[in-house]
């Protein structure tokens, strides 16, 4: 479904994304993980047209979309959410979601009705008439999710949708994301919250310094020494291995 090849983006002298390639197949939930500053959000931005890549290309559903503006990419079925939530503050929750729904529903009444349906999907149905600016962080995250869903995407890119949520809230959102996949939407998510990554994703890519350093199932990736070093520092892989052996021995 999504094919990213050799994508690169430099800012000044720094390569935020450096020759990255990845694939997402229909119906998957793929995670993109990596330490802070690895370039994950930049990668999302480059894929979805917010930042034009310097090198490489992106193909979505067989069509090359590199360099297209974000709204055109959204119209083709790939939509992203933002790490720092961006609600339309002065509008109500219903009106917020309706903006997304309007992509495929020109009539106002239809869009508002769709918004209600989507709100129910993410659990915001009690808050439809609240101003978006009064929502809690968890509520805003759901709103972000709902708005994106309302555009009826084929591929949903979630950027740290769990960030800032407490464990209860996380455990409430995880099934929502799973249900989204089950309803036919492919999902790629950037996540730091390992609990979510492990319980949701089929596969994961690990990004560090703009490059993919590992990929595979979450179990494979978690025990990959490169990944451990990326997160815990140089030499950590060895130390962890020694610790684990010592643990097994006792």
């Amino acid at each position, binding site marked *: 479904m999504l094919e990213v090849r050799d994508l690169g983006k430099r800012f000044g002298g720094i390569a935020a994304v450096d020759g990255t390639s990845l694939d997402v197949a229909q119906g998957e939930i793929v995670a993109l993980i990596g330490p802070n500053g690895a370039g994950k959000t930049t990668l999302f931005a480059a894929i979805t047209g917010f930042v034009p890549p310097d090198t490489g290309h992106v193909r979505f559903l067989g069509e090359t979309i590199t360099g297209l503006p974000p709204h055109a990419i959204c119209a083709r079925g790939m939509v992203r*959410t933002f790490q720092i939530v961006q609600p339309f503050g002065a509008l109500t929750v219903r009106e917020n979601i309706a903006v997304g729904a309007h992509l495929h529903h020109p009539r106002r009444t239809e*869009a508002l009705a769709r918004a209600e349906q989507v709100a129910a999907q993410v659990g915001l149905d009690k808050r439809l008439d609240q*101003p978006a600016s009064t929502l809690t962080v968890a509520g805003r995250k759901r709103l972000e999710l709902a708005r994106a869903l309302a555009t009826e995407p084929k591929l949903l890119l979630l950027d740290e949708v769990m960030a800032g949520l407490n464990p209860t809230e996380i455990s409430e959102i995880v099934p929502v994301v799973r249900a989204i996949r089950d309803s036919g939407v492919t999902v790629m998510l950037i996540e730091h919250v390992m609990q979510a990554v492990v319980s949701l994703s089929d596969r994961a890519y690990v990004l560090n310094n703009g490059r993919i350093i590992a990929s595979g199932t979450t179990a494979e990736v978690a025990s990959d020494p490169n990944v451990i070093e990326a997160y815990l520092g140089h030499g950590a892989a060895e130390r962890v291995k020694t610790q684990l052996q010592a643990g097994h021995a006792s």
Partner: protein
Amino acid sequence: MSARVAGVILLAALLCVPFAVRSEFWLSFWLLVLMFAFLGQSWNVLGGYGGQFSFGHALFFGIGAYGTAVLQVRHGINAYVAGAMAVAIGALMGGIIGLLVFRYRLRGAYFALVTLAFAEVARILVASFQYTGSGFGILIPLSRSVENFQFADRRVFYLLAWVLVVIGSLIAIWLENSRFGAQLMAVRENEDAAQALGINIVRTKVLAIALSGGMAATVGVFYVQNYLFVDSHIAFGPAMSIEALLVCLVGGLGSVFGPLFGSVVLHAIGEAAKQATGNAPGLNLVLYGIILIVALRFLPNGIAGLFARRTRPKREAANA
């Protein structure tokens, strides 16, 4: 009472004016109030619903005014046709300027300043060429007849202006209940998020400024038909630009009847001040400036915000 209800009541009251009021002076006064209400509504489309604050809306007003004047006086075109053409030119200029300015992502203060610059360029240009009357302005010959869009009875103008205000309110209601309006407001609230949801930012803004320009040009046409005279200062000077934005700000940005409330209150206060201080030039504008600052400080949602809220929330403070 909701703002909408208050607005409708106000409109109904204003409809009675030509029948209740005897003096020419007060008829003219309320006529101006209506015209400025529509001018404010034109600003509201771009600034209130669209979030792009223009400091040079006189540009479009002037295009309407000079457009119709020049077409009638220099080319002998029928007043209604000239007026329609002037409105079209106003909308077109709005679109062109929008394309130029929004393609290059001008926003906020930079956008406000560039609109001011355009208005000033227009002012200097029309004052420099014979074709547009140079420093003297243009006089439309008096010829009172319906075909010439001039009426012996000013009450006809008044009613037409009233209809215009109703149309303006309908346009605002349409914005609040349409896909275009929803997209425009999304762009106002958060451009990145709007883009991510499939909205073409530039196209949306350009359409908004074209609509706004056409509406403002309409007021220009009306003004000229009423007063039969326009010069560079009236058409493109700061007074109209300030009128357009003040009326909207005081009345309530992004609300259907805000511009009407603003126009009524502002001019009522201005007129009262004039009468109390014996018509000193400039004093009522001082009052306008004070009202602006007071409104910014205490009435972030304008007068419309004082009424009972519908479910719609309004502008929040900076870091809610």
